[in-house]
């Protein structure tokens, strides 16, 4: 537990007499919460993907990391206080952003808190009474929430103190509290709706996709919102003259905050105050009345599908689409790999990449990041399609950027290839007669290239032809060939490991940072050179040949890797 957790736990447990009156066993409560908070700190949250290490010093980072992460997010809210004037407008924006961000934080962070499968096996068989169990869960949620919400609000709180009269402070805090509660209930509703429309088996994957989307949204908003905001003239908007905000809870919170601070209880203002105070009550009612009855049994099903595997029946419907004779991976493997170990590595990696939730969580966000980077670059350069068609210097730069930035997805995927939470299953590669493990790696790298670059490359070639005819084609092909070279080089240097054979935490952090810089520098350097030879068609054609040869040679060396060279 970190100091933060200890303080929050101390505060949460201080009204002991109250808990005892509810029939809570205090020593049980303390034991459960201590264990839960300790476990939280050893978990990787979606925001703070920094790996925790075994040596204790970094174990404590998780809740501190969450704290800092949400503090940084909180800084973004300051935007509301400095770009628009008038408390209502500022607070409407603030509360909208707060509810959205908090909900997203919660949805990514709370899955494991709300749905802890192990509770059923560990706590329920012990003599712990229901009220202790429920209280522990509520306090746990409360502490997690505070760890996110307090730093999230902190910057805005300070800004609020500076800008607004002291009298408004208490209403502000009350409204923050209410909107936090509303967010929790919102998340509950989202969970329940997901559970209603889908099967419990898919629930976990849907949550992971939401998490991936969240990572992209945060990155995008960090990059884009301030720039777009500068263009829009939000200061001129007068919310009071519009009718739609009346149906919008953040507006109620903002209005009540303003009215409470000046003790204005006229007709419309008391209505907003009433609405604000009622909204959590109504939300609780809705959740309890309409969603909850099926919730517990459904949650039970999620657990059941994860734990009670004995329920798998013969011919159950949850089949993978592998029974059919034709499969894409097999036929692609036939084209791109030679027989034996390389093909095995290819098919194995192909399937693992597409099915392992962990791998997707780590790699898919980078697709979003690169798209955001490209969009950003497009906006900043103020280039148009005309520039690309006419191959002006701006257009050339744009083309280069598009081609090279997308390589980051592939590079990221390649660097993730050795890792898996199922790393122990790699014993199969040790006991089988594999002469040169390099063939496995080369098959695996080919699979990564096919999944994470080929579609993009095809898209670029096609859009290149569509926009400019054949004019841009040599350059696009050179770009792709260069990326092939870069990625095979990175694979050769970095991937001296059997695919999916290593646990994530054994990775050295320092080495990693160097690699990231290296990974970014090489494409940048090649892109830079490419920019200067853009118009020289013969140079381009020769370079394509050179790049292709180099990649072929590197692949050849990868295949030749011996066991003694494998880390």
């Amino acid at each position, binding site marked *: 537990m970190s100091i933060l957790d200890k303080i929050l736990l101390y505060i949460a447990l201080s009204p002991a007499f109250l808990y005892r009156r509810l029939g809570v066993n205090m020593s049980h409560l303390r034991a459960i919460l201590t264990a839960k908070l300790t476990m939280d700190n050893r978990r990787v949250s979606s925001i703070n993907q920094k790996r925790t290490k075994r040596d204790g010093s970094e174990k404590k980072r998780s809740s501190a990391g969450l704290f800092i992460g949400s503090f940084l997010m909180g800084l973004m809210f300051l935007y509301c206080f400095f770009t628009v004037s008038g408390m209502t407008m500022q607070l409407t924006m603030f509360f909208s952003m707060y509810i959205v961000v908090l909900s997203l934080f919660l949805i990514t962070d709370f899955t494991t808190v709300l749905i802890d499968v192990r509770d059923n096996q560990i706590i329920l068989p012990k003599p712990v009474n229901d009220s202790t169990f429920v209280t522990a869960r509520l306090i746990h949620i409360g502490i997690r929430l505070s760890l996110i919400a307090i730093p999230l609000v902190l910057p805005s709180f300070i800004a609020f103190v500076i800008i607004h009269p002291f009298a408004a402070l208490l209403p502000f805090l009350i409204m923050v509290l209410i909107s936090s509660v509303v967010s929790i209930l919102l998340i509950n509703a989202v969970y329940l709706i997901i559970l209603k429309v889908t099967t419990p088996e898919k629930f976990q994957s849907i949550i992971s996709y939401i998490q991936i989307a969240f990572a992209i949204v945060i990155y995008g908003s960090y990059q884009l919102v301030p720039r777009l905001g500068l263009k829009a003239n939000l200061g001129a908007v007068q919310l009071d003259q519009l009718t739609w905000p009346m149906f919008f809870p953040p507006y109620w919170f903002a209005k009540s905050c303003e009215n409470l601070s000046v003790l204005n209880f006229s007709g419309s203002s008391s209505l907003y105050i009433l609405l604000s105070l009622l909204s959590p009550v109504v939300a609780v009612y809705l959740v309890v009345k309409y969603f909850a009855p099926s919730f517990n049994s459904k949650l039970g099903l999620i657990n059941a599908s994860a734990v009670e595997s004995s329920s*798998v029946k*013969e011919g159950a419907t949850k089949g993978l*689409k592998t029974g059919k004779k034709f499969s894409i991976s097999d036929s692609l493997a036939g084209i791109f790999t030679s027989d034996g170990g390389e093909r095995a590595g290819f098919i194995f990696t192909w399937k693992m990449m597409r099915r392992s939730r962990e791998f997707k969580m780590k790699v898919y966000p980078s697709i979003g990041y690169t798209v955001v980077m490209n969009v950003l670059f497009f906006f900043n350069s103020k280039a148009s399609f005309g520039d690309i068609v006419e191959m002006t210097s701006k257009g050339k730069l744009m083309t280069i950027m598009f081609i090279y930035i997308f390589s980051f997805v592939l590079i990221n995927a390649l660097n993730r290839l050795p890792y898996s939470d199922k790393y122990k299953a790699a014993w199969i590669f040790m*006991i*089988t007669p594999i002469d040169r493990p390099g063939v496995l790696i080369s098959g695996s790298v080919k699979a990564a290239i096919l999944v994470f670059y080929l579609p993009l490359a095809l898209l670029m070639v096609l859009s290149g032809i569509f926009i400019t005819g054949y004019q841009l084609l040599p350059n696009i092909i050179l770009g792709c060939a260069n990326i092939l070279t870069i990625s095979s080089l990175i694979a050769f240097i970095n991937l001296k490991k059997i695919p999916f054979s290593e646990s994530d935490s054994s990775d050295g952090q320092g080495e990693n940072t160097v690699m990231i810089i290296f990974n970014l520098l090489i494409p940048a350097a090649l892109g830079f050179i490419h920019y200067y030879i853009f118009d020289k068609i013969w140079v381009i054609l020769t370079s394509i040949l050179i790049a292709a040869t180099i990649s072929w040679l590197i692949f050849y060396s990868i295949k030749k890797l011996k066991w003694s060279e494998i880390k």
Partner: protein
Amino acid sequence: MEPVISIRNLNKSYGTKHVLKDISIDILPGQVIGYIGPNGAGKSTTVKIICGLLQDFKGEVTVKGIDIRKNPVGVKSIIGYVPELAELYDVLSPAEFLNLMGSLYNMHKTLVDERIDTMLDAFGLMGNKDQSMETFSKGMKQKILIISGLIHNPDIIILDEPLSGLDANSVIMIKELIERLAKNGKTIFYCSHMMDIVEKVSDRIILIDDGRIIADGSFEELKRNQGEGASLEKIFANLTSNGEMHEASGKLMQMFEKEQ
């Protein structure tokens, strides 16, 4: 007869810990070896060396005349190893996983497919052929492990606690399978803590304790040395513990009795 596995003066240390001390064994084709010993006696280390997973040992190990240090890959291709409680890439289906194993053993795809079908059918898992193994029970996973150790029709089969999690019917089937494989000239190396099963399946029992062989012979021979009518469990206890476990359970009971 030429021994199929020959171990001469095998020594192995992990750091300062001397795990195997001068082990020498000759195993003949068609033998079923019950390899037993207390926890930490050095069983898995021996198995790992025979499978070619550990290279830094002292002594000589040859499998079918192949020196394991010179050609581990050659040895791996004639050994089928079923590790204890091993992890699987469970996002794959049995068909996919076994296909992967097959290609790692350099088998032809049509042969692999044929064997997968026959073996899954024999183990009653045909209906689960294309399901992700994530939802499989412990017993189902164990069956897949056994299949993956047999799929390339190896001459030597090393089974490490292969019956854990299996139901009674599957246990009977495996026991029968072991007998028939041995009759066909396969050599089986069976590591387990379940003494009653080792007693029944093996025609030679090797007991190691603290890195040394302390008994080697058929069950009948062991009984002759240790007193007629003893079970393997009793023999095991006599040779490895000096009655310490009685003392230990006594201490535990004393602890509870004191509190009452």
